[in-house]
């Protein structure tokens, strides 16, 4: 994308995320009672984050072994409730070490 197109993309994203944040506060004064809609909204963040994580983590890591290793280490630590920053850091260290090991091996 050109520089101008990137600015437009940023503003489009900003406009949509503002609408999503503001619309219920300004329009909906009652709770959502539709059970399907409530359940759908409840599951959305997990589905979307999982879809964006895999297989993208493999491509981001530079080599598949490092990507799988980062997913395994990050996944286990996250499962043990290690928290946002420790899990992120451990994933980075795993990729760095795996790339280093596969290069000398």
């Amino acid at each position, binding site marked *: 994308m050109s520089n101008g197109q990137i600015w437009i993309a*940023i503003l489009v994203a900003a406009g949509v995320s503002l609408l999503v*944040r503001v619309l*219920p506060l300004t329009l909906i004064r009652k709770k959502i009672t539709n059970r399907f809609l409530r359940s759908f*909204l409840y599951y959305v963040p997990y*589905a*979307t984050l999982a879809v964006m994580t895999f297989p993208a983590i493999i491509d981001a890591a530079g080599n598949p072994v490092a990507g799988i290793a980062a997913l395994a280490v990050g996944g286990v630590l996250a499962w043990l409730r290690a928290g946002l920053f420790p899990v992120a850091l451990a994933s980075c260290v795993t990729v760095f070490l795996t790339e280093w090991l596969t290069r000398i091996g």
Partner: protein
Amino acid sequence: MRRLILRGLRDGLPIGVGYFAVAFSLGIVARQTGLTPIQGFVASMLNHASAGEYALYYQISARAAFWEIALVIMITNMRYLLMSTALSQRIPTETGLAGRIATGFCITDEIFALGIGYAGKLSLAYLGSAFILADLMWSAGTMAGIIAGNILPANVVSALSVAVFGMFLAIIMPPARENKVIAGLVAAAFACSFALNRLVSPETMSDGMKVIVLTVALSAAAAALFPVPDEKEGGTAHE
């Protein structure tokens, strides 16, 4: 008023410190997609959502159409609809349009958590000052990631670029551990995403469209098969 602002800044500071570190890794991603430090700062100021911004940079690098970007941002930020709805029950009923818009703009997973933890009718002075401090540190972190990403060696950059996925794992795994449906949903999402990514080329279906289609299909299936009981409705604030 002054006391509320000070209390907001005090509660916003630890959130901001965490934001700076996380946004730094987001800045690495932004840098790879060609954003300037100023663009990263502005994008973070206005969007302030880790998953949403990652999706934005992902879409920019995939050269997605603007309507696709709008759709992806709407989907990745959809949980804010729930948070915004929850906050509408907690602000003073006489709050005007400007106050409601300002409250909505402040919503992030962590700031929402502060709002829910606030006893009594929610004060915008409190929530807003916590948000402004945290958002500035978030934006500064993104800018620092874009700048420092330029001087770091390639193997360090590829290592740091998985940080954002580590964050996502940290958000989805603890609830998956407690809720079998979420665990199954995450496993299904990994499998479907991998299959679609390898079977369908980016020319046939953009990566952003794949995220949208899979998110809607999987969430709708989960909602139809496993409707959420009432007490879990506010439980999405895990980020």
